[in-house]
């Protein structure tokens, strides 16, 4: 039950506990306005920041505001946005570009999709401001093709902005021109890496290239380029309008403002959450997310997608910012936050993420292409019960080599899921290797099913067993023939008396 401020039961969603600790800046208008109506965006002060920037500020003033605000990139690495713009503004070059990274490939993250579908004009406005600040006249939004609705809404929004003269020639009668185009991704996770994204827009295999030169100096089509992510852009009109002090008043010493998290997995209230930097995981998972459902025990929160790590409950009270998350072996990433309960096997989760990077590694550099494959094979060996005593050391050593020698962030961070689970859940690795057991009951090869004395002989397991591995007379305790059992879990799911043990 929820209480509104007056004490009576509220019918308004925003009064629920889910929203109490939230502070919505990037998601300000998501779920409020009709994203296909530009007038509604303008009705909530939309395009005012652009108008003021173009008519009242010099490009360097805009950059100063961003630098003072302390805004850092929301795509993962957390580079200061104002500084990035300054580098691009100062870089020599006739032609410059502004790009938006909307290639949200982290599994479990969907904040960029929500912003593009719910408030596309905020991104268009911010990109136009960026173009003015660095002196660009052409921009590209690189969107995942898996997001057709986001693409459609962006197309409508760009069309409307052109019609209103908010994109195109001589915007706000300032002599400034800016043209914006959408480019679709084609399903390559590595294209979320900035140099790979630009290589893909240029029409090549989306492979990263060494930096320096950084994109701010030599980016798209070899020209100085600013590339920011969707959520970063969505903050910018608010910062220009409300001032850098307003933004910097939120957050921690090193990380200002808010961060959007896509809260998912085994948590009661799955959803999009925007909280000030410095909020603790406990506040997000327990207070906003309503904890783990079904009376299950919390095991870990995974942040940062395939580049991040699993955080155990002992670090639940760490205030979240870029540095703090890195200190506990994870990373902000784009903001996926997946809650895992006691039924998740941490070795299996590490294997899942490595399977992802093996598939998504572009293959350009050896440490990533071969290293992640070998890591994945070692995890496969452990989860199939063939682990040996020195495997943990071998894993750790290989992780270090991949991190230190890969070309881009994909490879450099790929071992993070292994390292963080090894740090916090080493006992699970040991159980797999030494005892040949999977404590969470996930890894099939290590499972055995047995029937305990709770069995009343109802025969339902025997009837459902696809391998005919269960025998027993009616009303007597049943038995599983281990040589026939295919570990399909059907008996476990069908038994109403908790009489099947697995482990």
């Amino acid at each position, binding site marked *: 039950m929820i209480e509104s401020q007056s004490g009576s039961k509220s019918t308004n969603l925003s009064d629920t506990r889910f929203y109490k600790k939230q502070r919505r800046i990037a998601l300000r208008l998501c779920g409020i306005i009709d994203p296909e109506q530009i007038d509604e965006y303008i009705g909530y002060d939309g395009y005012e920041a652009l108008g003021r920037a173009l008519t009242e500020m010099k490009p360097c003033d805009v950059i100063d505001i961003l630098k003072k605000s302390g805004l850092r990139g929301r795509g993962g690495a957390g580079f200061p946005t104002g500084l990035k713009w300054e580098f691009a503004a100062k870089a020599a070059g006739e032609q410059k570009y502004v790009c938006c990274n909307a290639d*949200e*490939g*982290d*599994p*479990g*993250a*969907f904040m960029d*999709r*929500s912003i593009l579908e719910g408030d596309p004009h905020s991104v268009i406005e911010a990109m136009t401001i960026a173009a003015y600040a660095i002196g660009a006249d052409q921009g590209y939004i690189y969107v995942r*093709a*898996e*997001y057709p609705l986001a693409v459609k809404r962006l197309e409508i929004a760009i069309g409307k902005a052109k019609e209103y003269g908010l994109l195109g020639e001589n915007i706000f009668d300032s002599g400034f021109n800016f043209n914006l185009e959408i*480019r*679709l*991704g*084609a*399903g*390559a*996770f590595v294209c979320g890496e900035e140099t790979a994204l630009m290589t*893909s*827009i*240029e*029409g*090549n*295999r*989306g*492979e990263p290239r060494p930096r320096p030169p950084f994109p701010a100096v030599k980016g798209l*089509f070899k020209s100085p380029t600013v590339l920011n992510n969707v959520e970063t852009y969505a903050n910018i009109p608010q910062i220009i309008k409300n001032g850098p002090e307003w933004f910097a008043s939120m957050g921690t010493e090193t990380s200002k403002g808010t961060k959007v998290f*896509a809260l*998912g*997995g*085994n948590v009661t209230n*799955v*959803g999009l959450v925007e909280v000030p930097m410095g909020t603790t995981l406990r506040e997000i998972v327990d207070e906003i997310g309503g904890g783990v459902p079904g009376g299950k025990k919390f095991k870990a929160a*995974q942040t940062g*997608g395939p580049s991040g790590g699993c955080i155990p409950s002992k670090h639940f009270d760490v205030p979240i910012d870029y540095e703090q998350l890195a200190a506990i072996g994870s990373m902000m990433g784009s903001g*996926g936050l*997946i809650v*895992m309960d006691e039924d*998740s096997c941490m070795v299996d*989760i590490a294997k*899942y993420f490595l399977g*992802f990077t093996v598939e998504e590694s*572009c293959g350009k550099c050896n440490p990533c292409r071969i290293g992640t494959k070998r890591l994945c094979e070692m995890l496969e060996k452990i989860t199939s019960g063939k682990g040996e005593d020195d495997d943990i050391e071998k894993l750790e050593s290989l992780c270090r080599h991949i991190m230190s020698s890969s070309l881009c962030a994909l490879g450099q961070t790929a071992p993070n899921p292994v390292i963080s689970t090894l740090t916090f859940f080493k006992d699970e690795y040991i159980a797999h290797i030494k005892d040949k057991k999977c404590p969470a009951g996930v890894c099939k090869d290590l499972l055995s099913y047995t029937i305990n004395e709770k069995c009343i002989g109802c025969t339902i397991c025997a009837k459902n067993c696809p391998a005919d591995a269960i025998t027993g007379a009616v009303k007597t305790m049943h038995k599983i023939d281990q040589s026939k059992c295919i570990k399909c879990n059907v008996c476990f799911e069908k038994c109403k008396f908790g009489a099947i043990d697995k482990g």
Partner: protein
Amino acid sequence: MADSTIAFKGTKEQEAKLMEAIELHRSQPGPLMPVLQAAQDIYGYMPREVLEIISRQMQMSLSDIYGIVTFYSQFHLEPKGKHKIHICLGTACYVKGAGKILERFEKELGIKDGECTPDGNFSIDALRCVGACGLAPVMSVNDDVYGKVTEDQVPEILAKYKA
């Protein structure tokens, strides 16, 4: 590049559409990706014959184009089924049992992830996150999205498209 076992059945109309797309994008910077995306929309897949047209028109070697097409998971050299089954294996779906859903589809149809049934009716592809994590596990058949899917629902879902 191995030749497909499925005969190419492109029409004049499709070719005209492709030429139109090539003309539209040719003068832009970085035209190849939009052209390839248009080609796949028109033909449904990327047979050698289509890549050859693009190669001639864009004056790029066939091997370069092949390298780019095979780099991106959304381009495919073989046709997909009449009904395209997509199963999300993003993290949120994975921890909620999407792996089992995939296995069940594979078992019911007798094909593996990435394959097409011999009658051309169904194809199965695992996807990375579709961004509908609130409904995990999520899957879709063509444009119909199914949320909170259980293994037991798999035969019912298939039945709808078998008719």
